[in-house]
């Protein structure tokens, strides 16, 4: 039996994938009735605040974790098609404009860890990818990622998730394009400019479906294993304020009426360092207390896209003026997003 269980997945990966998908959907469909049944079994009034908060938590926590597991698994498989080397080869042959759009989109699907930002940056520049295009990639990669999008989808609905995706990509494309216009190649550190140029080649690793699934499982273990406490904390905060906190508490300071709230949110958000998941509890709390959506999204983007540790690392390859330009242009982009959002909605 154990031999069969071991060999079966590697021999029939597609069948296993189909079964897993079915099980996932089945599980997802039972969440709502299960959470209601659980609350009903507890000695609390369903219509009370506590009952509402409990049901909210018992439904949302497994829902978001399940969504996250599914999306991270699929993205882990997708990532195996987009190695940094391949992305670089795709970008090296393109010029500005279209390339910025491509770079930002590839930033979403290429596996990226913030500690790889600098080697990636140099690798791109070395292969002749234009500076502005490289920046489009570097801005989009941490800011627009599957974890942030899944959490927004699970907690605030698909509209906000889509808006975040669209606006995040726009900031990355436009900011990268603008930086490219400044022609600041000579503001790279000397040793980076002197690196020998390399040809952007890539050898496409031919992976089997089974190997791609293993990569998906690996990223679930890595990412979901790391972020689940944050997710639970975020949902617990959401549940705690579910119906408890008066909605106009934050409205005065971070509502639409306060024009200075967006720049303030960006100013606070830029030096802060946390990933998409760490910021979700804060977003949850701010929104529930009546802060304007544009302000909150601007805050979230500035926390994820710009941070002091990242700036310190980038300083090794960029001269101060280029860093200042990078931070300035991205912050301006995020600011615009915040205002447009507050104005339109």
């Amino acid at each position, binding site marked *: 039996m154990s031999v069969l269980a071991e060999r079966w997945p590697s021999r029939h990966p597609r069948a296993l994938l189909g079964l897993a998908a079915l099980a996932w959907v089945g599980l997802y469909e039972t969440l709502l009735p299960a959470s209601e049944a659980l609350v009903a079994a507890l000695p609390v009034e369903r219509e009370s605040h506590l009952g509402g908060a409990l049901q909210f938590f018992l439904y949302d926590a497994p829902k978001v974790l399940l969504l996250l597991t599914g999306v991270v698994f699929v993205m882990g498989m997708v990532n195996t098609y987009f190695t940094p080397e391949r992305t670089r080869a795709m970008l090296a042959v393109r010029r500005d404009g279209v390339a910025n759009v491509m770079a930002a989109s590839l930033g979403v699907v290429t596996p990226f860890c913030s500690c790889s930002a600098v*080697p*990636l940056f140099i690798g791109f520049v070395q292969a002749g990818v234009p500076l502005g295009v490289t920046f489009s990639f570097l801005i989009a990669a941490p800011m627009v990622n599957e974890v942030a999008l899944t959490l927004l989808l699970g907690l605030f609905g698909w509209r906000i998730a889509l808006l975040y995706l669209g606006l995040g990509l726009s900031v990355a494309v436009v900011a990268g394009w603008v930086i490219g216009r400044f022609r600041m190649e000579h503001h790279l550190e000397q040793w980076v400019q002197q690196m020998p140029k390399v040809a952007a080649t890539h050898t496409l690793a031919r992976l089997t479906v089974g190997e791609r699934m293993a990569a998906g499982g690996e990223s679930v273990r890595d990412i979901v294993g790391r972020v689940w406490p944050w997710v639970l904390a975020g949902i617990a905060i959401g549940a705690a304020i579910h119906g408890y906190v008066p909605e106009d508490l934050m409205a005065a300071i971070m509502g639409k009426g306060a024009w200075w709230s967006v720049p303030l949110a960006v100013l606070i958000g830029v030096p802060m360092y946390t990933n998409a998941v760490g910021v979700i509890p804060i977003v949850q709390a701010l929104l529930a207390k009546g802060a304007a959506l544009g302000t909150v999204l601007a805050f979230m983007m500035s926390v994820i896209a710009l941070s002091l540790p990242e700036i310190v690392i980038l300083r090794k390859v960029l001269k101060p003026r280029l860093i200042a330009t990078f931070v300035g242009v991205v912050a301006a982009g995020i600011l615009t997003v915040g205002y447009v959002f507050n104005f339109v909605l």
Partner: protein
Amino acid sequence: MKAIKVLGTGCPNCRRTVALIEQVAHDTGVAVTVEKVEDLPAIMGYGVMSTPGVVLDGTVVHAGGVPGRDTVERWLTS
């Protein structure tokens, strides 16, 4: 004696990679030297774009993410 270099700017994943290799070396009883390369120009000299990278006896065998335990065992025992 195998010479292993771990390329990385000191991120958690790089430290985990070093710890894993040392652990596997200890468990399998293979003699290795593990060196951390944190100097950026040196890292880039290996042509690695995503860290941590692993160099085994002068050849880049891995880039991007912590390698799996069985992969490390294969490096050490092959």
